[in-house]
Each structure stands twice: as structure tokens, then as C-alpha cells.
């Protein structure tokens, strides 16, 4: 047997390496961290590592190596866009966790390490050139998140969240793996480019050693379609789309709020990156088969997320259902499967990241030692007692609801433009009407803050400069992105080269 050593192009994975090494550095530094200031020390190391990761991602912008490491890793602008997004997500999460770690006496070393490792997993998913790599990245992400969800060990809900996430998540991973197996069985490869070639499309992502193409007469085997369906289940679980969303509210409610914030944006972004990669590289010729499935899922997701959110009394559950709904909007753009559609997914993911992290930052800032204060009634009168928090939350709610001039509005506008261009008029109308439903519950948060007298005193807020900074960054980001989207639009336009 002849063993060929693939060309090792470490530049292509430089950002992932940096992220992983940062995680290791934090793990080691934890041993030497001063016991008192340990939080800050480790947070600073994480932030420095994230800055290096971002710099490396920018350095290999336009590097375009579609089939590094024998086709398992693709280093293109699409991957770099998501790498930068993940860096942003982790950085903001580090900021908004800082006070909560102190308040709830979490051990900071493992916390930051797991955050960074999960981010490495997400980067592998976004840069995957092979279904196996998608699987590995997803596992790295998931296992880190299972632990993070249970980080608040003294709270039963947190443990419940962790176990629930683990059990259901393992099932979903099983579906994904089975889907990969069926795809392999019907096309002879797990490499995305090779799968595409097997189906009769030329692909820049194909590794050198692709098996021969299927015969033209073979048609589309049912096994392949089943495999695609299972891939949708596996990735849809991570993206929290209906009907694979049932874990979401419980896990979001039980997890420490900072972790909830993180997974509500990170896991979703990674899942959508993987969905775009897999479906647009491997199965572009079957778009009529999978876009129908995704359209149905998108409608269910938007309707379920938005209607169930109305009934929630707990802000974390409300944001959980809202995050389900937002996954639905993003799916609308995936269904469009055009270059405009992919661009709008990228833009919306960024917009959603900023507004959702911001909203959770406010939730964290409203918590007190030993009390999370996550019931909606706790928000009464906040607009006057803590004017900055009220204003920030108003901006985030309006943005989530899609009111101009915010990032959320422009994102929705972009997504529905893509749907209209692709002729998905029905989907666009349903989606935009579903977003009107969402206005109701977002407005409820606003009127509680400004138009209802507080029922009880939450106590004076402890100073929380880190989390406040996170909220501030998010407010500025949401407004700037809404007013001047052109810069990011240029980036998204430069990131869709992988569509061929």
C-alpha cells in the first residue's frame, strides 16, 4: 500500500491554530494565575489570542486555498469571514462573562479554555472541505458547549440543561454521522468537492484523489436524498430550527446567561456556515430537492418561534424562541441559494450576533448576586432606573424586530430581497408577516421598561464595566451596521467566491 503524505499548508489553518493555542495557553496560565485577579488575567490572555487570530484571518484574506490538507480544509474568504465573526463572538462573550464569572464563582480557567476550543471547532466547520471535518468541528463545538451549559454547578437547572443538551445533541450528531455515511455510500466520497464531481459538477474544492464519477444514467439515488435529509436534521439541530428546536428553551433557560448568549449566536452561526458549505458546494445540482425541504423547515421555524415566544414570561426563554425565529429568517436566505442569498446570510449572522449578544448583555447586567432577575416583570421601570440599560435594550429589541435604522432591519431587508430575487414570493410574504408577530413580544419588553411601574426593587447594580462595555459595543455596532452597511456588504460580496 502506498501512503502519500498530503501537502501541509499551515497558513491555511493559521487562525484555527492560533485559536487552539490560545486555549492551551489559558489552560497553562491558569496554573500560574494570581488567585485574586485570575479572572482578569485569563480574560486578557484570551483577548490577546483572539486579536492574533483575527490578524491571521485578515492576513490570509484572499489566500484562497480551496483544498488544503488533501481537501479537508478550505481556506477561502467565506471561511475567513466566519473566523472573524467567531473571534468577535468570543471576544464579546469574554467581556460579558467577566462579572458573571466573579459573581457566580465559576472557575475561569476551564471556562475560557472551553470557549476558545469551541470556537476552534466552529472555525473548522466554517472552513470544512470534507464532511468528516464538519463532523469533527461540530463535535468539538458540541462537547465544549455541553460542559459550558452545566457550568453553574450549584443550580439544578444548569445541570438539567447540560444533560438535556448532551442527550439530544448526541442523537443529532448520530443523525449527522448517518447522513454522512449515506452520502459516502452513494457518491464514494466524503470530500465536498468530490461529492459534487460525483454528481456531475466541476468543483474547485475537489481533492486530488476523487473516485470516478457516477454514471450519468444513475440519476439521483434515493440513498443520497435520505443522506441529505439526515444532514439537515443534524445541522438543523445545532441551528435550532423547528422541528429540531425542542431542546432550545430549556437549555437556554438553564445555562448560565453568558453561555446562553454565546451558544445562541455561535452555534447558530457555525451551523449555518456548515449548511452553506455542504449544500452549496456538494449538492448545487440538487438544489430543487433540498431547497423545498428547507423552505418547509423555514416556515415552521418562523411560525413556531414567533408564536410561542409571545407566551413567555422569562426573558431567556423569550430570547430562546426569538433565536429560533431568527434561524428561520436565515433559512429563507439559504433557500434562495443565490449569491445574494449567501451574502444576506453572512450579513444577517453578523447583525444577529451583535443584537442578540447585546440583549443578553443587558440580561446579565440586570442580574444580581444570587438572583438572575430573568422574569419579564423584573424589567418594569428599568428605562428610568438604569437609563443606559433601557436605551440599549430598546435598540436591541427594535433591531431584533427589524425596525430601521438598525442592523436587524437591514439584515431582514437583505434576506427578503434575496428571497424575492429567487422568486420565493410566498416564502418572503410568510417570513415578513411572521416578523410582524415578533414585533409584539419585542415591544412588550420595551413597554415594560418604560411604561410600567416597577413591582419590586432589584437592588443597586454592582459596577460591571466589562459587561457594560460589551453592551456598548453591541449598541454601536447595531446602529452603525444599520446606517452604514456598505462596508460589510463589500466583505460579504468578497466572501462568496466558493460558489464557483
Amino acid at each position: 500500500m502506498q501512503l502519500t503524505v498530503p501537502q501541509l499548508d499551515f497558513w491555511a489553518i493559521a487562525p484555527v491554530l492560533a485559536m487552539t493555542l490560545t486555549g492551551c495557553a489559558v489552560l497553562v496560565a491558569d496554573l500560574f494565575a494570581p488567585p485574586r485577579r485570575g479572572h482578569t488575567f485569563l480574560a486578557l490572555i484570551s483577548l490577546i489570542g483572539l486579536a492574533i487570530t483575527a490578524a491571521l484571518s485578515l492576513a490570509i484574506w484572499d489566500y484562497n486555498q480551496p483544498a488544503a490538507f488533501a481537501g479537508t480544509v478550505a481556506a477561502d474568504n467565506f471561511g475567513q469571514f466566519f473566523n472573524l465573526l467567531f473571534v468577535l463572538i468570543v471576544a464579546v462573550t469574554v467581556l460579558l462573562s467577566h462579572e458573571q464569572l466573579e459573581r457566580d464563582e465559576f472557575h475561569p480557567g476551564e471556562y475560557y479554555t472551553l470557549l476558545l476550543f469551541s470556537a476552534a471547532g466552529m472555525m473548522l466547520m466554517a472552513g470544512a472541505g470534507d464532511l468528516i471535518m464538519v463532523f469533527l468541528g461540530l463535535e468539538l463545538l458540541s462537547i465544549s458547549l455541553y460542559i459550558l451549559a452545566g457550568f453553574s454547578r450549584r443550580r439544578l437547572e444548569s445541570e438539567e440543561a447540560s444533560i438535556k443538551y448532551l442527550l439530544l445533541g448526541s442523537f443529532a450528531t448520530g443523525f449527522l454521522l448517518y447522513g454522512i455515511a449515506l452520502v459516502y455510500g452513494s457518491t464514494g466520497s466524503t470530500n465536498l468537492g468530490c461529492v459534487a464531481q460525483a454528481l456531475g459538477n466541476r468543483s474547485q474544492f475537489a481533492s486530488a484523489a476523487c473516485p470516478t464519477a457516477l454514471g450519468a444514467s444513475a440519476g439521483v439515488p434515493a440513498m443520497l436524498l435520505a443522506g441529505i435529509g439526515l444532514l439537515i436534521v443534524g445541522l438543523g439541530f445545532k441551528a435550532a430550527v423547528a422541528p429540531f428546536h425542542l431542546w432550545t428553551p430549556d437549555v437556554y433557560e438553564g445555562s448560565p446567561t453568558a453561555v446562553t448568549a454565546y451558544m445562541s449566536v455561535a452555534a447558530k452561526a457555525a451551523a449555518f456556515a456548515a449548511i452553506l458549505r455542504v449544500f452549496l458546494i456538494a449538492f448545487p445540482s440538487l438544489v430543487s430537492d433540498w431547497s423545498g425541504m428547507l423552505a418547509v423547515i423555514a416556515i415552521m421555524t418562523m411560525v413556531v418561534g414567533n408564536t410561542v415566544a409571545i407566551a413567555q414570561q422569562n426573558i431567556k426563554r423569550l430570547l430562546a424562541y426569538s433565536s429560533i425565529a431568527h434561524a428561520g429568517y436565515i433559512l429563507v436566505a439559504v433557500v434562495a441559494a443565490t449569491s445574494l442569498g449567501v451574502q444576506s446570510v453572512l450579513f444577517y449572522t453578523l447583525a444577529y450576533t451583535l443584537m442578540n449578544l447585546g440583549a443578553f448583555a443587558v440580561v446579565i447586567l440586570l442580574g444580581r448576586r444570587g438572583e438572575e432577575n430573568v422574569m419579564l416583570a423584573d424589567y418594569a421601570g428599568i428605562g428610568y432606573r438604569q437609563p443606559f440599560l433601557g436605551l440599549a435594550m430598546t435598540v436591541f429589541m427594535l433591531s431584533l424586530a427589524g425596525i430601521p435604522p438598525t442592523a436587524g432591519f437591514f439584515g431582514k431587508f437583505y434576506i427578503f430581497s434575496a428571497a424575492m430575487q429567487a422568486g420565493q414570493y410566498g416564502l418572503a410574504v410568510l417570513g415578513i408577516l411572521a416578523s410582524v408577530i415578533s414585533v409584539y413580544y419585542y415591544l412588550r419588553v420595551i413597554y415594560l421598561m418604560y411604561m410600567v411601574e416597577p413591582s419590586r426593587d432589584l437592588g443597586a447594580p454592582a459596577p460591571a464595566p466589562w459587561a457594560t462595555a460589551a453592551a456598548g459595543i453591541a449598541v454601536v455596532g447595531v446602529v452603525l451596521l444599520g446606517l452604514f452597511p456598505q462596508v460589510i456588504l463589500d466583505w460579504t460580496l468578497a466572501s462568496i467566491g466558493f460558489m464557483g
Partner: protein
Amino acid sequence: MQGVPLLSILIFLPLVGALLAMAIPRENERLLRGWAMVISLLVFIVSIPLWFAFDPGNADFQFVERVPWVTSLGIAYQVGVDGISLLLVLLTTFLMPIIFLSATTSIQRRVKEFVVLLLVLETAMLGTFLALDLFLFYVFWELMLVPMYFLIGIWGGPRRIYAAVKFFLYTMAGSVLMLLAIIGLYFLSDTSASGSGRTFDFLTILRTPVPSVWQPWLFAAFALAFAIKVPMFPFHTWLPDAHVEAPTAGSVVLAAVLLKMGTYGFLRYCLPLFPEAVVAAVPLIALLSVIGIIYGALVATMQRDMKKLVAYSSVSHLGFVMLGLFALTPESMQGSLLQMVNHGFSTGALFLLVGMLYERAHTRMISDFGGVARLMPVFAGFFLLVMFSSAGLPGTNGFVGEFLIMVGTFQAPTLGLQPHAIIAGLGVILSAVYLLWMYQRVMQGPVKGPGGVAPGAGNHGGSPGEADHPVHLQDINPREVMILVPLAIMILWIGLYPKPFLDRTAASVTRSGERVAAITGGTLVAGAR
């Protein structure tokens, strides 16, 4: 005035004022109120040159400014003014100082938030009227909802939250479909394969006729958004709630300016963009308008709450405006445009008057009052004038508008709207009925006040004399006279000499109706008189 970005200054001055107002400490209410007056007066002063520098003979947009915004999607910041928006812009800038002046007493808490929100609202309103880019238009259009939502929700009456949320959801539900239609227009603006010429630029979109297949759909989406905003029967149910719960300042803005957004939208966008669909929709819209006129008037007649009465009278009056617009004759359309302005003055004034009475007596129930004219003669005088204007009596502005609308509607033979015009005429009579009846009950007869009888009895009934009148209804003070005089002047000016107003609107209205006229075969000639 060459080179001065007059319209941008107009749009963003209030916003800058609002941002600076955020820096003023909330305890310093006098400074906040003064600041709001200064800014709103400044905006009005900036808008005056528009009236004089505007070229009435030119149907094109004037003072156009264009700055690229989101270039990859063909979105630009583009503003301009024509005869259709000119009067509405001036109406807005004219009313804002009056509203701030009236709020001196009616808004007592959270003054800072009030000032900031109302100034932001002014930016949004002016932006909506002046935008010449569909994306920009939509941004301003939606932006209007937020401050209005807070105005109703924070300073409103007992059911304010219900009213605020209903207002927001209703309008939002209508306008999101318009967003899809706007996106549709964007893709239709360049149907070539590359699509590089696609744009949201209204002027370009105007030059590319919308294909007939698309017109009904896009028109329906636009029309729904505008019809809810107007509001047309049967989409009017949010209006009474919003009006009754809103503070006086909110009601005035809502009635005088926000409702005009709907009718303005029909005239600005629907008529020139979707002429075939418009002509096809005439029977339906004319019917709904007439139903609105009669229904609004009948319901107004039965109201016990003065504010609700005025709210329903708005439904009736805007039915006239809609009828005039869709009669598609130059007279009726011009009359409609003028009537939009008239309604702003007269209904705005009515809400202010009811607000003044409410501040004194803390009730708006008609049955709580009687003989007020004897206690407040000056107030009663203004009330009478405004009422005549609202009922369309000759010599007031309401007459000119309604007359033009009905003449125009009658002259639209190809569309067969004579019956509508006749029924609308009944609406005028009904408006006199409910207004005069209210006047009679509130202003005349034996003096009566809330609580009715001597202290201790605690219910209505009996026939109390002046001696045991439980509240002191003092006549209006100089500040309140200052609020009402400008409105009275406008009512009489337009009523007696409307020519300067009609001159400035004629060319643009004709232009807006050209494509429709080409279908109906009517000839639109400039100038109604």
C-alpha cells in the same frame, strides 16, 4: 440659496436637537422646553424659504440632493420637494412649535423623553415627505412608529399600552408588505441579466413603467400600507384607540401629520407607479371612501367623549380625501391635497381645544359640560371657528377643499362617481350635525361642570347653578391664545384666498396623475381655477 442643502438641514436639525437635548439634565425642565421651542421654531424658519423659492410652474422635484448610500444595492440618500410635499412639509414645521407650546402644561412628567421623542418624530415625518429614494422613504416611514409608540405609551391615558401596541402592530403589519413591493420595484427597475442598473431611486423607477402583470400585486401591497395609515374604512379601528389614549400633543401630530402619510403615499407613489391598477381599483376605493365618510360621521354623532368624536370625524374627513384622490380629476386631486392640509389645521386645532378643556376639567365627556361659552367666551369663539372649518363652512379652508373634491368627483363621468359625490355631500351635512350638536351641548345651555351637582352628591343629574360649579373653568390664557391664533389665521387665509396654495400644487398634482389620465382618457389640465 444655491448650494445650501436646505432639505437636509430641515430633516436633520430636529434630530441634532434631540441628541443635544439628551445632554440636558432631566431636572432642568424649563431649559428642555425652551430648547424644544427654539429648535422647532428654527426648523420652521428654515422651511419658510421653501415657500418663496419654490417654482410653482415646475412640476419636477426641486432642491434635490443626492448622496450615494448603499451603492451595491443602488440605495441613495435622495431628497427633494415638489408641489405635493411642499404644503405637507410646511404644515409639519408650522405645527411643531405649536405642539411644543401646548405641551407646556399638558406634559408634566418625563419632559426630557418627550422633547427627545417629539423631535425625532419630526425628523422622521419630514424625511418621509421629502425622501425620493424608496428605501430611504421606508426607513423614515417605519422610524415614525417608534416615537409615536412611546408618546402614546408613556403619556397616554389608562389604556395607553393597549392603544400603543395596537397602533404599532397595525401600521407595521401594513407596511411590511410594502417593503416587499419596494423590493419588487427594485428588481423591476432593471430587468437585464446583469441587473447592474437596479436602483431604489424613485426618479428612475418613475421612468420605467411597471409591467401590467405586476401592477395589481405591487399596488395592493402599497395600498394596504397606506390605507391602514389613512385610515380607510375598514382599517380604521386602531385610530380611535390611539387618539383617545394619546396625550394632546400626540393626538395633534397623529391627526395633523401622520394620517397624511397615507394619503400622501397614494398620491406620490400609487398614482404614477401603478396607473392601471389604480384605475381598476377606483370603484372599490371610492366605495370604501364613501362608507368611511358616512360611517365615520354617524359614529362620531353618537360619541360621548369629545376626543373620540374628533377621532371619528377624522375617519369621515379622510374618506373625502381618498374619494377626491381616486376620482382622478385634477380638481378633485388638488382638492384632496388641500384638504389634507386643511384637516391638519382644523383637526389639530380641535384636539388642542379639547385638550385645553380637559386640562381644566379632567374630563372629556360631553355630558359633563354645559354652558361653557358663558365661562370661557374667547375659547368658545375659537371653538366655533375651528368647528366651522371642520364642517366646511364657506369662508373657511374646509369649504375650499371639500368643494373642489366634490366638483371634481362629479366631473369624473368616465368613472361614474356621481352617486358617490352626492352621498359624500350628505357626509358634509352630517359633519355639521355632530359638530354643532356637540357645540350646543358643551357650550350652550345651563352651566354645568364635571361632577354636576354640589359636592357630596357625587353623581350626575340635577340642574346645578353656577354657584356650585365644582371646577373653575377659566378662559384661555395668553399662551393658549398664542397657540390658537396661528391656526385661526391659516384657516381663514386658505378659506378666503387659496390661490397661493393651489398654484403651488397644480403642476405636480397634474404630473402625478398623468399616467392615470392617459388610461381614463380624461385630459388633465393644470390649475383648478
